[in-house]
Each structure stands twice: as C-alpha cells, then as structure tokens.
C-alpha cells in the first residue's frame, strides 16, 4: 500500500479542543503542512494569540510564544529582528488583530516587517462567548448586540485587507475562505505564499481567512459554512489585495 497522506510532522499528535465545525483546526493543519513542505519547522517560531487559538502553542510542533491580546505583530517583530534566520508567524483572530491589536497590525505592515500573519476572521469573539467583533456583520446578532449590529450603535465592520492595502509596506494581502473544499485548497496556496515571501525577504504578508464559529453563531457546522459563503463573502470579497508582483 502506498501512503498518500499523513499527519504533518509540524503538528503535535494530540486532540484539538476546537468545537465541531470550527475553522481553526483546518487552518492549523494547512500551516503545519506548509511548514513540512517548506522544511522550516526547526527554525520557525509561532506566536499564539489570546482567544480560542491560545492553545495553538500546544498544537504546532515548533517553538511557540503566547502573548497578550492583540500584540502578536509586535512580539513577532521582536523575534524576527533578533533572530532574522527564523521564520516567524503570528496567528490571530478578528478581535485580537482588528480590535485591540489594530495599531500593531497597521504599524507592522507600515514597517513591512518580514513576518507572516494568519488572520482568522469569523466575525465574532469565540473564546469569551460570542460577543461582537470589529468584523461582525451589520444585522448579525451577538451577545453584546443581541438585536443585531446596527450602524447607529456599533458602526461598520472593518475590512482589514482593503484597509491595509493602502500601505506600501503591506507586500502581500489575500483573503480566502475555508468554508468549502476549493476554498481550503486556495487558502493553503495563499498561506504558502505568505511563508515563501518571508523566506524570500519580501516583507509583510497577511492572509485573512474567512472562517466559521458555529457554536457562537448558534448554527450547525453545515449552516456555518453556508453563512460564510452567503453572508460574509459578499461583505468580505475573496481575492488578492496586494501582491509583491504588483
């Protein structure tokens, strides 16, 4: 028999604590496969966020650091500048990256830090129990906007890729989705490019992944995937917003 697939060696062999239908597990696996394929596991340092993915430091089989909410890009900056020979990635959710950590996101992009950011946008705070995120859609309910997000009270969702695309330092920005199998394949391709860019010293690379949170959305996993395609994608269109080839 021919082995056609196996667990990536860049992933620790243990059960993940993520909920059924959550996108974190998929994206973790993609990152791990890419670390294997690029053979960078032994010189990669990952930054785990605050939120559900705080446990990423247990799942990735490489050196990891877990830091304060929103500060991933600053921590990654400190590591990369001190150890330029390392590949440094920061894994962050929407509350982390687009709310409390927006300054670190914008300024690390402006400096074009040679780091890779994986940004999981599921339009809600997961770990804390489903509060409104900066990316929560208008009309979408959450535990802190139970009647639905309204412009009058909560303002508009933040489109991070579109915003960062204004910065010269943001060398590579792409938005993908893991709600479908083709989307997962495209996401892998994008994340691989974001890592390859760092190897090639291209500068700041970020992939925004539209992901699912069926638990806090009050949906089944199937309904959750549909929500991404039908509700999120029209507001957060998929595609490349900046690329080094531009």
């Amino acid at each position, binding site marked *: 028999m021919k082995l056609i697939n196996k667990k990536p060696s860049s992933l620790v062999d243990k059960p993940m604590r993520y909920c059924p239908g959550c996108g974190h597990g998929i994206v973790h696996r993609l990152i791990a496969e890419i670390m294997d394929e690029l053979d960078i596991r032994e*010189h990669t340092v990952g930054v785990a966020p605050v939120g559900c993915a705080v446990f990423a430091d247990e799942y990735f089989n490489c050196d990891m650091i*877990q*830091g304060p909410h929103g500060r991933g890009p600053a*921590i990654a900056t*400190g590591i990369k500048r001190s150890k330029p020979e390392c590949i440094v990635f920061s894994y962050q959710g929407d509350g982390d990256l687009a709310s409390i950590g927006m300054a*670190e996101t914008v300024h690390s992009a402006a400096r074009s830090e040679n780091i890779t950011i994986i940004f999981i946008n599921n339009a809600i705070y997961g770990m804390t129990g489903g509060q409104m995120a900066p990316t929560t859609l208008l009309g979408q309910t959450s535990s802190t906007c139970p009647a639905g997000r309204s412009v009058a009270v909560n303002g508009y969702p933040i489109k991070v890729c579109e915003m960062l695309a204004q910065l010269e330092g943001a060398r590579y920005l792409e938005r993908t989705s893991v709600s479908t199998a083709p989307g997962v394949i495209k996401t892998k391709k994008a994340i691989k490019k974001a890592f390859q860019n760092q190897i090639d010293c291209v500068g700041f690379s970020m992939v925004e992944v539209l992901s699912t949170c069926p638990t806090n959305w009050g949906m089944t996993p199937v309904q959750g995937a549909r929500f991404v395609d039908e509700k999120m994608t029209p507001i957060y269109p998929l595609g490349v917003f900046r690329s080094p080839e531009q």
Partner: protein
Amino acid sequence: MAEKILMKGNEALAEGAVRAGCRFFAGYPITPQNEVPEYMSWRMPEVGGSFIQAESEVAAINMLYGASATGIRTMTSSSSPGISLKQEGISYCAGADLPIFFANVVRGGPGLGNIAAGQGDYFQSTRGGGHGDYYTIVMAPNCVEEMGNFPRRCYELAEKYRVPAMVLADAILGQMMEPVEFDFEPVDPKTLKAHDWALGIAAGRERRIVRSYDLREGKLELLNLERMERYRKIQEKEALHENRQTDDAKLVVAAYGTSSRIAAGAVKMARDKGMKVGLFRPITLWPFPTKALATIAEHVKNFLVVEMSMGQFVEDVRLAVCGTARVDLYARPAGVPSADEVFTEIEKVYQGIR
C-alpha cells in the same frame, strides 16, 4: 576602563546597557527619557543590535517580550505614564520568566503630571506594577555613574533568577551631567551562556514554549509557588544599601535616589552643627534592605523619611523597623526639596528626641 566620561544620565543608562550586552531596544518618545531612545537609535546599529521606535509603549514592551524570548539582552525605557502602559507586558514577562530590563525615568504624576522629577512610582515599581502576583528587581541610582553601572547588575540578576529588572531613576538623574567611570569591561554577547529556554533554531532539540498561562487545575499555583521561592532567595541575597554615619546616630534619615543626595547634604549640615544624624539609602528598592534597616533600628530609635511622593517609601521603612522606632515623614509629592529644607525637618525631629 578607568577613563572618566562626562555624560548625561539618560545617555549613561543607555551606554551602560549597551556595554552590558544589550542588543535590542524598543521604545517610544516621552520626556524626560528621550535621550535613551535617541542614543540607542545610532548605538544599536553600531554594535550590530536592533533599534525600533515602536508605535506605542504597549507595542514596545511586546517587542521586548518577543526579542527577550530569543535569549538576548533587551531594553526598553520610558517615563511614568509610559511605564503604566507597559505594565501588562511586564506582567507577561514576569509570568513567562523572561529576564527583561527596563528603566523608568520618573516624572511628576498622577496623570500627565509634569516633566520634572518625582518619586511617585515607588509603589508601582516595588509592588509588581501590573496585574497578578509578581515582583520586579528595582535598582535606584542616585548619580549618573550608577545610571551607567546598574544596567549590568540588572541583567545579571534578571538572568540568574529569570525575573524582570529595572532602574528607577527620575528627571534629575536622567537630565544632569556628571563624570562616569564604567566599572566593568564591555560584555560581548557572544560570550554569554545560551539559555535553555530561548526560542530560535530548534534543530536537534525539543520544541520550546514561552507562555505565562496554565489553565490546568492547580497548575498555576505550582508555577507561582516556584516563582515565590525565587523571590524569597532574591530577598535573602540581593538587597543592597548604603549606610552613612549611622553607628553613633540618634536620628537616621532614610531616602533613595535623588532624595538621598539631597538628604546627604542636609545630614552633613546637621553633623557640622554637632547633631548625631546618619543616612540610610536603599540601593535596591525591591528587594528592600529590610534586615539592614532593622539592624540600624536596634540602636537608632528615630528615623526621618524624605521622599518626593506622598508617603510610599515610608511604608517599607515602617515595615522594616516594625514598631521598634519612631518614623517621621517629610513628603514632597512631585516636589524637589532643598538641602536647607531637609535640614530644617531634621532639626525639628532631632529637637523632639529625648
């Protein structure tokens, strides 16, 4: 090594850190410490290190968190409001056992306060400062030369015990110029021992994790108990102080940093008038030299605390003498007393001694 250089306090602080092997600095402008990042902006590249002007104090301390996790000597500096912003990150460093070094060139507070000297950050510095249960080693220089020489000791203690360490200065110490003689040869970071916790190239070893949390039942307390034991050892072994003319004293003035220099002048005035007055100056504020002060209190029954704050430092003096002596307070919150004013206070207290 015996060369004397005329330096500004903030520059001595920066140069002292560089000579001690610092190769990463992240900071954000705030008066009265701006000479530190300005100096580091050219000095770091000169020695092959990194300098970053961060977007905020919050980002700066987190850059330090990442950089020091790779095992190198790092530094950030700020002044009071900026240090408040850094406290969350300092707490993370304490929780992750990272030996960062930072300096607070204190200004008047609370709030925006002013940009003159103050000692209002004593509690913040000596009681942890951020959230959670932790301590930071605090060294309090009282001259420019000590500004230059204390960073090395901070690095050594921080690495020995895996705790953050800081220099607590103030606007006067940061801004004035004095001759400096560095009491150590420059440290080549390549000669420092590699840490067995540092992140980086993992070839041939198990992966490492730097973090400040443990959500498993009962585990966090075990981590904290182990850290508490390290704190106990620091308190037992690393307290530093200076006594002047305390042996025959009837009254001992207790003061640190800038206050201790002013107090030294006032003590001399008192001695010139035949009064038996001495000076006790803690050099480390945490660990506080409790035993040294308690020893003085065995024969001295009157203390006068002089501090440029409302009565923060006085609490540690009272805890150390533990009711065995009378402790008076001359508080100048964000005010700088003259030696004459301190002398007047000494006279008042001295006259009341029976």
